[in-house]
């Protein structure tokens, strides 16, 4: 399941939906949150823009690739868009499998590719300024870990 949405998500509900009765031996989950990026967290927010259609298309490709690499039971990716404040949840990636190694690796892989291949853009907003976040070279470099 892939969802791009404005509303918040419930980690407990997502966790439960990832579990397959009698089969799930491991669930790995990652949650990305908005951290403080200014002197005044109460006045700071993010706007997350995305490219409708391309975002879902590329997230589907990333999840399909993870399913090719590892034996997984279920994958859920939720990414929020719109206005977000400090301490809000941004992204959820959850993977269930029979064993922990697959769950850990697939969760890490999906998050790595999401950072560099999913069409989202963050803009930081404070009372003083509005600024698009620059992409980090380290995110692109991180993908090299997955080259066979």
């Amino acid at each position, binding site marked *: 399941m892939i969802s791009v949405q404005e509303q918040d998500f419930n980690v407990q509900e997502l966790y439960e939906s990832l579990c397959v009765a009698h089969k799930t031996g491991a669930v790995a989950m990652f949650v*990305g949150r908005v951290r403080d990026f200014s002197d005044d967290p109460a006045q700071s927010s993010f706007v*997350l*823009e*995305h*490219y409708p*259609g*391309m975002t879902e*298309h*590329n997230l589907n490709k990333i999840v399909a690739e993870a399913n090719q690499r590892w034996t997984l039971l279920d994958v859920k990716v939720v*990414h929020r868009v719109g206005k977000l404040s400090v301490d809000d949840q*941004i*992204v959820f990636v959850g993977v269930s499998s029979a064993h922990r190694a697959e769950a850990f690796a697939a969760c890490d892989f999906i*998050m790595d590719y*999401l*950072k*560099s*291949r*999913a*069409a*989202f*853009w*963050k*803009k930081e907003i404070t009372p003083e300024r509005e600024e*698009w*976040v*620059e*992409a980090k070279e380290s995110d692109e470099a991180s993908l090299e870990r997955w080259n066979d």
Partner: protein
Amino acid sequence: MAVKADLGVLIVANLKVVFFASLRETMKCDELELPVEGTLTVRQLKEKLAEQLQQPLLLEEKVKAAIDFDFARDEDLIEPDKVREVAFFPPVTGG
């Protein structure tokens, strides 16, 4: 003498181009339709747009492109009759 109608007729197709994030703000445009005469590369489209919109920023290396939702490189071909839309945007920063 009659001239066959299909000879010498330039096929012009309208190509949908979309912009996102900082590039959309710089271009002051989120979407446009550009008449094109047949197949062209991503680079050629960038050059055409940069000239037409007076925005040399489009030619910068960091500007990314996608053809029908798939990331595309400068040398990739755009066939207007098969392509729904081409997008230009800065490097992504989600997650």
